[in-house]
């Protein structure tokens, strides 16, 4: 059973819809006991960084999230804001993040592209994955793989090995997927990315992080 954590941050129904389509048992809940019992956990979210951390705190979810991620080492996937919360901080706010990944989020400062065009923030639309390192989440991804993004801030990882895949926007690369050990995050919305998103969520539902030695936490 995958638990999609409901902490009051936007559009969560669509993730459950896609998991249901994939015949993956899923539950949308904000109940700490159910989150603790989950085989794997998705932290979704749309909205502001501080509001996200505040909601996690006010709903008393911080202890159980720390427990499943750090102690029980269950596979955890952050999506969009949920990915940004995995890091330490964000320029968007003043609250500290969950701090499971050494990353901080910066606002896009687009530089002119080679053709002179300057991308408009937010980064909204379908984009491709560029450089990629092997990871269970991107198994089967090819050059045509694309995902739907909507965001104004992007994660910068302190350890380059935590970057699983980058995409290109605002005249440079940014982190599209990050991962360390049993924890991973995607900046885009797999639940809104057709078959590409389905493959990623399917990969997540089968992911056995302990079998991966390359990125075990130091």
């Amino acid at each position: 059973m995958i638990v999609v954590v409901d902490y009051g941050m936007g559009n969560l129904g669509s993730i459950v819809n896609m998991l249901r389509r994939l015949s993956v048992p899923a539950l949308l809940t904000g109940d700490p006991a159910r989150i603790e019992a989950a085989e794997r956990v998705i932290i979704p979210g749309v909205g502001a960084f501080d509001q996200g951390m505040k909601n996690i705190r006010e709903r008393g979810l911080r202890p159980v999230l720390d427990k499943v991620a750090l102690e029980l080492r269950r596979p955890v996937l952050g999506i969009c804001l949920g990915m940004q919360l995995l890091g330490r901080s964000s320029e968007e706010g003043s609250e500290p993040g969950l701090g499971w990944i050494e990353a901080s989020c910066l606002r896009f400062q687009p530089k002119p592209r080679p053709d002179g065009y300057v991308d408009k923030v937010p980064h909204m639309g379908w984009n491709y994955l560029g450089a990629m390192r092997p990871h269970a989440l991107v198994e089967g991804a090819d050059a045509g793989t694309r995902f739907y993004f909507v965001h104004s801030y992007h994660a910068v990882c302190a350890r380059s090995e935590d970057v699983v895949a980058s995409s290109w926007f605002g005249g440079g690369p940014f982190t599209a997927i990050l991962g360390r050990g049993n924890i991973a995050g995607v900046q885009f919305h797999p639940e809104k990315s057709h078959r590409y998103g389905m493959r990623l969520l399917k990969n997540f539902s089968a992911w056995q992080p302990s079998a991966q030695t390359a990125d075990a936490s130091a």
Partner: protein
Amino acid sequence: MMEDVYQPRQMRPRVIPVLLLRDGQLYKTVRFRNPKYVGDPRVAVKIFNDKGCDELILLDISATPQHREPDYQLIEEIVSESFMPVAYGGGVSSAAQARRIFSLGVEKVVLNSSAVENPSLISEISSLAGASSTVVSIDVSRDWLRRSRVVTGCGQRKTNLEPVEWARSAAAHGAGEIVINSIDRDGAMEGYDLALIKEISQAVDVPVVAVGGAGQEGHLRQAVDAGAAAAAAGSLFVFQGPHRAVLITYPNEDKLSALFG
């Protein structure tokens, strides 16, 4: 060329079918009149979904004229099978309604008449769901002096608002995207009002979605060249041939890459 050099692929502009709902069925208008029956919206959306469409805009054109709320059940049925971003507009007049629509899995709420009547609704929804989920759609018609003016109530009520002024104001209130729809060009399939698209795109920093007039794929490119971040169309994706036979189509990725490349 070295294979390990990362060749960035630029994002391609979005191409968005606009589907008009009327009493639970799909219709297509000409100049906002003469609605022609297209089919069942669930079936059409399933086809767009299978074709890997970028995004959808659903507009219920009977909600506001009938003074009724959105048809939540229909929206849910459509969205639960849509694995792409969906924007919904039609009859949304409160933040509570918007919240309910977002909870069904809709990405973006589209405001039109209600935003003109009460611009603070834009800020309310924007602070609730974020600017990128808050879209203001502006229906425009040119008067006898060829001046463009905002029209509300699904083409029923002419106003003295200038589209550029209203677009700026809507963005200032928190709209993260502006849809600009030309009533005069609706269903004509003869190309967008490019002058209008250019004016609006230059006036606001937020993405502009062009609607109204696309009759061939080349028109989509023209809208983007005029400054639109996305090109949307109705007839182009639901009709085929001179007799407007109903056929749901959407260009594949290779075609779109070539179109915007």
